């Protein structure tokens, strides 16, 4: 399983993030998005930001999760390197409870490759596939506007 794969797109950034669970796919999608902007290895997991999201579909949950990370990045001026989520399906939809860990941006140590403006819904997908040995793999496909 390739956890994060960046695909060719002329003007924007497209990636697939995978996980052996839904949670892991969401976490890797967060990492893939941040990784499009900055090398996560340069970001220390010093502070924690909690995230709570409810959505009426799994797709909307993923969209809101990624959009929330971008929002926090911009208003907190923080970069992130660790993502942890728990996801539950309830009666009215889906619920995510997560923690994002990182640190405030330090221009001396943090160099940005690009700025992600937003998460698009173009070719947006989250799906479960059967893998070898009876496992299942969740894949999130996302195009970012940069």
């Amino acid at each position, binding site marked *: 399983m390739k956890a994060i794969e*960046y695909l*060719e*797109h*002329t*003007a*924007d*950034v497209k990636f697939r993030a995978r996980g052996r669970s839904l949670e892991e796919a969401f976490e890797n999608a967060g990492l893939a998005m941040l990784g499009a*902007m900055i090398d996560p290895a340069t970001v220390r997991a010093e502070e924690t930001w909690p995230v709570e999201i409810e959505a*009426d579909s799994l797709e*909307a949950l993923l*969209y*809101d999760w990624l*959009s929330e990370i*971008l*929002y926090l*990045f*911009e*208003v907190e*001026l923080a970069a992130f390197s660790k993502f942890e989520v728990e996801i539950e399906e309830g009666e009215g939809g889906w619920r995510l409870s997560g923690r994002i860990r990182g640190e405030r*941006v330090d*221009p001396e140590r943090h*160099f*940005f*490759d*690009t*700025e992600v*403006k*937003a*998460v*698009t*819904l*173009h*070719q*947006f997908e989250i799906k479960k596939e059967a893998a070898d040995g009876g496992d299942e793999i969740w894949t999130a496909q996302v*195009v970012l*506007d*940069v």
Partner: protein
Amino acid sequence: MLNRVDDNIFEVPMGHQKGMRVPGRIFISDKLLAQVEPGTIDQVANVATLPGIVKYSMAMPDAHLGYGFPIGGVAAFREDGGVISPGGVGFDINCGVRMLRTDLFAKDAAPMISSLVDDLFHDVPSGVGAKGRLRVSEHELDEAFTRGAAWAVEAGYGVPEDLEHCEENGFMEGGKPDQVSLKARKRGRPQLGTLGSGNHFLEIQKVDRIFDEGIARRFGLSEGQITVMIHCGSRGAGHQICTDHLQVLSRAVRKYGIELPDKQLACAPLGTPEADNYFGAMAAAANYAWANRQIISAWTREVFERHFADAKLDLVYDVAHNVAKVEEHSVDGTMERLVVHRKGATRAFGPGRREIPEAYRDLGQPVIIPGSMGTPSYVLCGGEGAMRLTFGSACHGAGRIMSRTQAKKIYGGSEVKEALSRRGIKVMATHPKMLAEEAPEVYKPSDEVVEVVDQLDIARKVARVVPLGVSKG
């Protein structure tokens, strides 16, 4: 699979994709068409499936792969039965460009260019997550959302003449701050007066060629003159507004039973609350962007005045290239009110339109087309061809041909900077890394793109400007 209609005009036939309501039209030369990805043509076809689309789903000669609409996409919808879609506007609502002309000439300004760029880089905040020098109140933020550049001028950033030389006179009616979320406000408040990053820039240029003496004189441009170009948009406020409303419109698609080939084309029928609210929020973001460019212009003037005591910088024009607007156009001989979406396309109204400032009305509007970093930009004049062929629209730039990932593999930021420096172009950026993906070679040559709109009389070439110094995020 494309049919040639005429020189520089190709048709995407109805059969290209299931559900197309109109054919597609791509205004492009054979040479440029060869560089267009098949996905871009599919995106033109996708837009053609939207309800109420009029005549054609169009793409300009700088067309390339986007999300939802292609970049360079133009589509108009009937008020009755049509839709509005954030996929046709984009996240950077009213990303646009303005040009200021100075009363300086290259020979006098040359020794100062380096210092001017340093000061512009310092005085106009740029870069990822940059915060502005301003601390606006909640009330002032509302004013920016409703009255855009008009508010900025009243607040001391510029002169009333600036507004006359701005598309929409600096703001669109109908901006609804109550449709702007708390998140969008929190992102927007500290960023008013910032350039951003990516392809956004602030550039000092020199007019190096005049194509039409008469019109150039009327636009106040002559050879050797120093000009300044500002390219930026609505920053985090616009990105968040689009993000928020995209979700609402995705639900509207199910509610109103619209079938879409691409989820980013989420839309709502005109006249529904979802459509009205998106329009109000989009207009608020557009106004924020006009206020942003106006504030940056004021700081640019301050920098020039520090170097040249009596420097005078007048706005030539300001154009939006990511926006949806209600406009009147002739459809098969009858004037109709349409909602025109331009996604990476510039309005290019021909002579006589009342939307054009009086000073230019008999000529057509100035159309400002930025090149990529280090390549020429153009000033054109909107022509009759635009009114006949493209709902008054032209291309918006050079158009990417290479992905950012690919660009970074081939070019290093420092090398790009050095190469430009050897050509006498001074570049300031927050970090050289950001320069690699904007290397001049990743874009189509701007002169070829401009040639197509000139040949079709969409917009005629007036002047060419070349960069002397660039400040980037």
